[in-house]
């Protein structure tokens, strides 16, 4: 092994990840997915294909869902990144996470973080999507285990839970 100078200079990236400031060094070619997993230790975001076709690496970038394997880490500079790790409130679960458990909407679970992040973005835009709308929105996320039936049901269940008026006396 030789110990030469590394051939490429890294870039300092400062962004907001799940509501907290984050700063890391990124190689120019490095994807946001790789930066999240390797530099920040946020391995909840999964790699299934690394070419934008499976959706396992879905995160929200300034509120817009993206395949983080197709975004350069350097592009996150100055932006807000939301990943699966930031989805649950302290000491609890997001209604979508709870619904995925209740509806048995995961088998192996590798696609689950991507589905949850994508479904959350849908319900934030459209609180009561119909079945077709859910299927269309989630068509960028592949699941090989479930046949999607229970995933669609879980999103419907979360939608109906989240549309209920908050109980009297506050949260």
């Amino acid at each position, binding site marked *: *092994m030789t110990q030469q100078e590394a051939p490429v200079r890294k870039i300092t990236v400062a962004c907001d990840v799940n509501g907290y400031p984050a700063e890391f060094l990124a190689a120019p070619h490095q994807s946001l997915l790789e930066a999240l*997993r390797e530099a920040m230790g946020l391995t909840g975001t999964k790699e299934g294909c690394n070419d934008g076709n499976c959706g396992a690496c879905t995160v929200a970038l300034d509120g817009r869902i993206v395949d983080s394997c197709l975004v350069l880490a350097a592009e996150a500079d100055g932006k807000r990144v939301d990943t699966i790790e930031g989805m649950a409130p302290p000491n609890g679960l997001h209604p979508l996470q709870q619904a995925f458990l209740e509806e048995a909407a995961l088998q*192996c*679970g590798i696609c689950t973080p991507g589905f949850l992040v994508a479904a959350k973005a849908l319900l934030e835009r459209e609180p009561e999507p119909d079945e077709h709308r859910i299927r*269309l929105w989630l068509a960028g996320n*592949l699941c090989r285990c479930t*046949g999607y039936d*229970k995933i669609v049901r879980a999103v419907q269940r979360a939608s109906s839970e989240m549309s209920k008026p908050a109980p009297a006396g506050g949260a």
Partner: protein
Amino acid sequence: MTTTTDRPAQQFNVVGTRPIRHDGVDKVLGRAQYGADLKLPGLIHGAVLRSPHAHAVIKRVDAAKAAAAHGVFAVITGEDMPVSASELLDMGEEVTDLRWMSERIMARGKAVYKGHPVAAVAAVDQNAALEALKLIEVDYEPLPAVISLEDAMAPGAVVIHDDLVGDHLGEKARGTNVAEHTRIEFGDPDAAFEQAAHVLERTYTISRAHQGYIEPHSATAFWSPDGKLAVWTTTQAPFGVRSNLAQVLKLPVSAVKVTPMEIGGGFGGKIQLYLEPLAAVLSKKAARPVKMVMDRKSVFDATGPGPGGQVTVKMGVDANGAIVAATADIRYMAGAYPGSSISAASVGVFACYKVPNLRIDAYDVVINMSKTAAYRAPGTPQAAFASESLVSELCERIGMSPMDFHLLNAAEEGDRRPDGPIFPRVGNKACMEAIRDSAHFQSALQREGPDGKLRGRGMASGFWNGIGNRSSVTINVNDDGVVSLVEGNPDIGGTRATIAMQAAEILGLPAEDVHPAVVDTDAIGYNDLTAGSRTTYASGQAAIEAARLVVEEMKKRMALVWETDPENVEFENGVFRNKVAPDQRFAFKQAAGKLGQTGGPVAKTGSVNVRGSGGGSFAAHLVDVEVDPETGKTQVIRYTAAQDAGKAVHPSYVEGQFQGGAAQGVGWALNEEYYTDEDGVMLNSSFLDYRMPTALDLPMLDTIIVETPNANHPFGVRGIGETSIVPPAPAVANAIADAIGARLYQTPMNPARVMEALAAKRNGANGR
């Protein structure tokens, strides 16, 4: 979601309920650790150089520049891997030869499939490893690639392995690509065809289809200077990986410890070794732990899909529609090394029927593509595409409804399975009856869809036997009355829950009070793989055994507390009672708190070797499709799957298996295939071009759980994970034929093939 049962009243408290799976919270939080998520002190990263040719002599490999490159710790080639002699190994769902396995993992002298590893590098990070691969010089001399049955079986064919000795009906054959030709025969099918009222014969072509798990393969290894090899991997078979690594690397089995990480799907494709031995040898050379993660393209190119091939089936019936004879000729392309589940195909091709005269020939054929692997009910969906399509076409010809045909000819208890065994009590007819009585079957199909689209309905049945085999489960009783359950089967689809629930049933505890953990191969007794529909069925029996031993021990402890004989202590519904002093009673939790004063901890292991199969699970699927005659695109618009679960332990995950198999089968039916050029190079090795069903491609998938109890399990459970992929492709084919009035004989039934069938029909060729 419906459940039909004919069981005598066996009452359950936990089995049959739907608790939240124990590993669920970790998985929805993104905290579950899959193979690629592992981090270790001093970890470095590996990458593989793969052959760009499907068939080539490797004349020279020069890795000197790579070894000297920035950040590189180690480089290995075929020369660094131990050589193995021929030795047959039982892999659980298939049999393989140690020598073929060793050569498949890393080429030496010759590459026999595109993607065949030629060298591997370990470097400080993934990027440095990939850069170093570019510095490895390899001289190839390309050879003609054998990529079709015709090429492989023709007289004078290019022979891929000079030293392969084929077994052709018991005769040794050399200079061949046909590794095996088997035959099952009874009665006199040829004479029976002569006497039959109607006979139909057809040939079907089935595409090579990948399991398509979303998580690529990964493995991390650390070969310690003390000779111990630790491996963390994403596998269905931690004990199988341990054995195979010991065999390939010439180590004692006890020197290898395999830790199964969470697994992101397998479907049979994560049983064989791929990266583990390369990571191990790199680690030995680098003296560091080495992590390797496969990219998606390599998953397609170099891991095992289910085999494609050709199946010719012939069936004769009498004037009433009863089957008098059937024959099959099954030819599967195994890939670069033998082993394409032809024996399971021979069992499955006619398993749904009573066939008095029968002959099944099967051929295992070697070609220059990656070695195939088990894929959910290995070999059977391909065979059923042929037999169940034939049945539907035969029914059209004789004017009989497929439902009547199935009910008349369904194999039941006492009938002979094609390969010899007599069926025990099975739910074949019960599944068909469940479909017949379903809202879906009972509703009329609106035959015209919007915009001139054509609708049709099809059905098909299917069978998978499943396996039992070896399992060990340990239960430790904590003094708060919660028990921990230690098991060795990676949990691909909810089996922590289904195994824990069976223990909970015996212990009288809620499912939540049994805490399951999947552990490494040093931490639990031997367990066969998570495959063959065996995990809930067989490891569940180990859990039941362990729980019974716990109860027996705790009875003795309660006898000490109550100063009575253990025979006087009974245990029912989670409560220990003193029969001679009925006011003396402790719930399980109270009793657990008294173990410290009565002899110490209670930890019991149930170890089983479950003989025979998972009881056999039959299924019947019904599907409605809508075909666009302008584009040839087929959309599945309604689906109902009925299958025999014996007893559904966790009905949600049983339904999930039915739905997941149906979805995979629909993908195989409509879109999935390996597209290659004439040199055997796959052209669609991405999820964009290898088109698996998305949420938008499927409707809700209705399920009917049929419960015909299995006498080989205390609760009547059957193994259910695989049958669901068997009926979909022929059911879809039958529905398309019903919609467009022309039949397709090849998967995938993609828009181009549907358009061809429509054109042929217009030209009067009747779709053939």
